[in-house]
């Protein structure tokens, strides 16, 4: 079946899923699922001596679904530790449902080969793991979901979690946990809050036990079955790896300058506006440039959203932003600040971006700046597969936040010899209908359906091209790349945030 973004979703892998029909969800009533609860005895303790022991207590068995969060990003120790212990017990055929996976999770390749893991849903796949999956190591396709899409899938029961293994920077012995106190802090636990609420059994793993009651209560005692103390749950410095580069690259600075121009010359740049910026050099530079413009024009933002970084904290401290809604922290400074700043508020993945609740924060966004590996002539964006077709990215909140009033994609025209603006993206993650402006170092392209933006941004000194012209310029520099050769096997299915299938990822030919 061919969907709305002209991608074929083969019947044999489609299952019960519908295919993508557009960004507007049909808003019919949904029935949420609820977890099984084993009530605690009056004198029962939750503390368990080791991961091995807790696995026995959980009755973890073949075919179950287990989950994790990725708030430690490249500094996470939990997934590898827990999976190693599970593998030693001889448990097989597990589905793992982490909120995302990063380069440090390469050891999962081994657990896939040995049949410990046979199904997977995640937002990101990188490094050796991404390569192995692109080379067809798994029998069943991986289900790729955005952060909002995962929250929706957990609530609806599409992901039914038997056991959640949640690393927490601190907890008391009854399970009140947060990410702002402890030896290894990560800040917001927004993604993990979903798992805590909906998993049948919840295990907290920590390296810091604090006196009862440990506050703030990000994960509550009412949802927690067991607590395991470890030497170290992660590395706080790994949170910022790859995300928070302070750029001096002139090309990135030029892109950031143009993004700033687009924002400040749009109708949305006024008192009380809201914004989300992503990670990466250009996005961080945008935040700095935007702050300067806000100061000189005496404009304040009502809220900033998303993955939070140090430049956003600076804006909060300087009262350029009233409130930060924080689902995840992208550096240690932001994580520390969450514990101190009362105007930096921890929110769950559902509150952040879930399309099937009664109102997510992304619905209130005026301006979002997102990155891209590829953008095509239909404005579709790929953030998941590299130019060689290999899984090496993460959906994150990309397609969730892209429904802002003005969605800006910032990307260089070419990276080395690889064009960024292409005929057809390898993988559609965010549909072109939700994308408004593409910003490159040579100029911008505006989605033709946004006539209002074309009118308001013309004659403002910003070079405007058609998307076709940008694509021709990119190919003019690099030459036309040879199309990637794929096998027939589907290695991953991409869900749009509402659970419809927007694209597939095929095994790459060796």
């Amino acid at each position: 079946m061919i969907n709305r973004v002209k991608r074929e979703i083969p019947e044999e892998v489609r299952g019960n899923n519908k295919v993508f029909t557009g960004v507007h969800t049909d808003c019919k009533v949904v029935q949420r699922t609820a977890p099984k609860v084993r009530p605690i005895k009056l004198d029962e303790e939750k503390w368990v001596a080791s991961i091995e022991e807790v696995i026995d207590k959980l009755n973890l068995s073949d075919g179950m679904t287990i989950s994790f969060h990725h708030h430690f990003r490249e500094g996470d120790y939990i997934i590898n530790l827990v999976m190693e212990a599970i593998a030693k017990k001889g448990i097989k055929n597990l589905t793992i449902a982490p909120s995302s996976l990063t380069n440090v999770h390469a050891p999962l390749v081994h657990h896939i080969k040995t049949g410990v893991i046979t199904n997977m849903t995640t937002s990101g796949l990188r490094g050796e793991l991404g390569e192995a999956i692109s080379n067809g190591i798994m029998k069943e396709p991986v289900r790729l979901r955005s952060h909002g899409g995962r929250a929706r899938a957990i609530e609806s029961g599409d992901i039914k979690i038997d056991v959640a293994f949640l690393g927490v920077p601190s907890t008391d012995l009854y399970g009140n946990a947060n990410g702002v106190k402890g030896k290894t802090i990560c800040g917001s636990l927004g993604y993990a809050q979903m798992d805590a609420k909906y998993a049948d059994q919840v295990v907290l793993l920590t390296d810091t036990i604090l006196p009862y009651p440990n506050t703030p209560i990000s994960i509550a005692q009412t949802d927690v079955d067991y607590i395991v103390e470890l030497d170290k749950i992660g590395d706080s410095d790994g949170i910022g790896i790859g995300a928070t580069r302070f750029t001096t690259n002139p090309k990135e600075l030029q892109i950031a300058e143009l993004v700033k121009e687009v924002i400040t010359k749009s109708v949305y740049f006024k008192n009380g506006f809201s914004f989300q910026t992503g990670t990466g050099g250009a996005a961080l530079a945008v935040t700095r440039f935007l702050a300067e413009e806000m100061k000189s024009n005496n404009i304040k933002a009502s809220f900033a959203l998303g993955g939070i970084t140090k430049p956003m904290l600076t804006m909060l401290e300087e009262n350029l932003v009233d409130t930060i809604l924080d689902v995840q922290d992208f550096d240690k400074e932001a994580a520390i600040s969450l514990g101190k700043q009362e105007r930096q508020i921890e929110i769950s993945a559902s509150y952040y971006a879930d399309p099937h609740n009664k109102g997510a924060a992304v619905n209130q966004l005026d301006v979002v700046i997102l990155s891209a590996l590829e953008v095509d002539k239909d404005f579709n964006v790929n953030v998941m597969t590299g130019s060689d077709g290999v899984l090496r990215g993460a959906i994150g909140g990309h397609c969730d936040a892209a429904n802002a009033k003005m969605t800006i994609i910032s990307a260089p025209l070419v990276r080395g010899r690889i064009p960024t603006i292409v005929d057809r993206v390898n993988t559609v993650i965010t549909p072109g209908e939700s994308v408004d402006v593409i910003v490159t170092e040579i100029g911008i392209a505006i989605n033709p359906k946004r006539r209002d933006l074309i009118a308001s941004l013309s004659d403002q000194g910003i070079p405007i091209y058609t998307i076709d012209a940008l694509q021709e310029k990119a190919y003019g520099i690099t030459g036309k790349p040879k199309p990637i050769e794929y096998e027939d096997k589907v290695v991953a299915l991409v869900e749009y945030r509402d659970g419809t299938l927007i694209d597939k990822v095929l095994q790459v030919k060796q």
Partner: protein
Amino acid sequence: MEIINQSTSGTLESSDIQIILGPNKQGIDIDIRSSVQKQFGEHIDMLIRKILSDKMIENAKVLAVDNGALDCTIQARMETAIYRSIGENQRVDWGVVE
């Protein structure tokens, strides 16, 4: 022209290509290791063959380690390697090199 000595040009930096050019008994042997092999490997092979044939070179061994160089860079690095390997550097009139 005839390739007499082994020569190198270029670096392993991104957007550059390193060429190691040497004599060969018969024909052109090209070994390309490129970060964009899948998309541009064949194109780079053809480009290097063309540059050699434009210089009337019939026997050569080329090892090209590419980190996403554009065609203009590949051309420049190849020509440099060629002039360094023909053993008559002094006689090249750089003012008229195309």
